[in-house]
C-alpha cells in the first residue's frame, strides 16, 4: 500500500536529498507537486496511467487493476482499483494540487496478457483506459501496452515515464 493515499495527507519532505520516491501500490494512486519520483512495479495485466500538467509539472500516477467500477458489489469500492473511477479520482486530485485538467497529457503502460487463465483482463484494461481518457479529453501522448511481459515504471519530475520490462528492455515514453 502506498503511503500517499487519495487523501494525500502525508507530510511533504523538505530535505535537499535526491528526489523523494513514492511507491504506488496496486489499486492506488499518488500525486506529486514537489518533484518526487512516482514508481509502480510489477504491472502485469494492470495498467498504469501517468498524467502530467506540463506547465506546472504536477504529476499523478494510477495503478488500476480492473476496467470498470460498474458492477462492483461493495458499497464503497476503492476508486483507484478501477481504470474509470481511478482516472476520475486522479484528475480530481491533480486539480486540487494545482494542475489544470485542460492541460493534462497521458501516458499508458501495462495491460499485458500474462496468463491464458485470465487473458482478457489486460486488453480490457487498456481499452477502458483509452476510452476514459478520450471521454475526459486528455490526449494520450505515448503508450507501451500489451504483450505478455511484466513492467515497472518510474514517473520522473519532468514528465518522462521510464518503463522497464521484465526481459530487461528499457524505454522512456
Amino acid at each position, binding site marked *: 500500500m*502506498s503511503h500517499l493515499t487519495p487523501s494525500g495527507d502525508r507530510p511533504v519532505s523538505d530535505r535537499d536529498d535526491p528526489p523523494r520516491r513514492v*511507491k504506488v501500490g496496486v489499486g492506488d494512486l499518488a500525486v506529486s507537486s514537489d518533484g518526487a519520483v512516482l514508481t509502480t512495479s510489477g504491472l502485469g495485466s494492470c495498467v498504469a496511467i501517468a498524467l502530467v500538467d506540463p506547465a506546472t509539472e504536477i504529476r499523478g500516477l494510477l495503478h488500476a487493476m480492473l476496467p470498470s467500477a460498474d458492477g462492483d458489489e461493495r458499497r464503497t469500492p476503492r476508486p483507484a482499483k478501477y481504470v474509470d473511477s481511478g482516472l476520475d479520482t486522479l484528475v480530481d486530485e491533480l486539480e486540487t494540487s494545482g494542475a489544470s485538467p485542460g492541460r493534462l497529457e497521458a501516458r499508458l503502460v501495462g495491460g499485458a496478457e500474462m*496468463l491464458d487463465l485470465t487473458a482478457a483482463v489486460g486488453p480490457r484494461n487498456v481499452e477502458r483506459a483509452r476510452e476514459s481518457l478520450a471521454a475526459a479529453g486528455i490526449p494520450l501522448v505515448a503508450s507501451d501496452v500489451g504483450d505478455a511481459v511484466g*513492467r515497472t515504471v518510474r514517473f520522473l519530475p519532468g514528465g518522462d515515464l521510464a518503463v522497464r520490462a521484465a526481459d530487461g528492455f528499457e524505454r522512456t515514453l
Partner: protein
Amino acid sequence: MRVDVRALGACNRLAERGAERAANALGELTGSDLAVEVTGASVATGEDLAEAFSGRESIGVRVGLDGGLEGAAVLAFDAEQIDGLLSVLPGGSSMGRSAVTEVGNIALGGFLDGWANYLGRAIDMTPPRYFEADGAAVLPDGALAGDGVFLFESRLDATGTDLDFSIYMLPDSGPFRDLVVGKTATAATAGAEGARGSAAGANATAVPYESLSTFASLAKRGSANAADNIGMMTGLETTVDVSRLRFVPLADVPSEVGTEPHAGTVFELQGKPSGYLAILFSEESAAAIAEEMLPMEPNEPLGGMAENALCELGNVMTSGFIDGWANVLGTSISHSPPEFVHDIGSATVSPLVASLSRRQDYGFVIDAAIRTEGVQARCDVYALPDERELAAALERLSET
C-alpha cells in the same frame, strides 16, 4: 458465536492504519522514507508459529496493552539488520540498546494510536521492554499456547535505507473476539443497507468462531501434502518451512511476491472453494529443481525442457495441496492444467488478484515455503480461494 470473515478484513484495515502511523513516526525520527509493504492478520497455532520463527534471531521491544485492546505487542528487527538501523539513528551505533528501545517505543506508539483512533478508545501501553530473542520467543507471551491465535503482522520498508521491521500484535482472545463480533454486527448492518445487500448476503461470509482454527489446518495440511508429493516424485528430501494462512488485502499480494523475476506455475481451482494457486520459484531455484528432475542437463536453464519439468512438478504439488484442503473441508476440488509463468513475480500474480478482487477486497493467502534437501530450491505457494465459497465450506464443516 459467528464471525464474519470480512470483519477480519476490517481488523486488518486497523492494523494497516496503525502500521502507517508507525512508519510516519519512524520516518520523522530517522529522516528516511518508510512505506508499509505488507499488513496481514493470521490465524495460526502455537506449533505453526514456533516452526515459522525457528532459526530467526530478533531484537526489539515489547509492551503490554490495556484499555481499547488488551494483550501484547512486539516490534522486532531481524538481528542481522541491527547495524543498519543504528547507522540511521541520531547518535549512531553508540546508542545500541537505548536507541532500539526508543525507536520501538515511537513506532509502537504510532501503531497503537492508529488502532485507538479507529476504536474510539485509548489503548494504554506499558513501558517498552527491550529483548533479544531466538526463534518464536520474539512473539508476545501466550502466542504459543492454545490453538488458533490471531496475530497481526506489518512489514515496513525504508525506500532509502535497509530498514525493514515487523510489528506483531497478539490481542487477548476474549476482548478481541468481542471486537471482531462487534465488527461482524457492523458488517451485517452495512450489508443490509447496500443496494444488493441482504441479511443472506451479509451472512455469506460468516462462519462459527470455532471454525477459525480450521483455517490453520488448511494451510498446514495442504502444504505438507504438496511437500510429500514432491518427495515422492523427485526422491528428494522435502520440508515445509513456513505455512500460515493470513488475511491480507488482495492489493498487497503482488508487492508481497516482490519484483524479482520468478518462474513457476499457476492453476485455476474449481470446486468448493474455487480460486487460484500459484507456485513461484526464484529463477535460480527453478533452474536447480528442473535440472534435478531432468535426465540430462538442459540446453538453457529455463527453456522448454525445464518448463515441462516445472509444470509436472506444479501438477503434483497442486494436487497434493488441494487434496489436503478437500480432506479438511470434506469437499471436492479440481484444478486446471498448469500454466507456466516466468516474469516479474508481482506481475504474474496481479491478474489473479484482479480476477478475484471484483468480489472481495481481502484474500486468504497461504504461504508455504517448500524446501528440498540437497538441491538449493525453495518456492512459495500462494493460494487464493474465493472467500464466500471457503466460508460456506467451513460452515458446512461445522454442521457435521
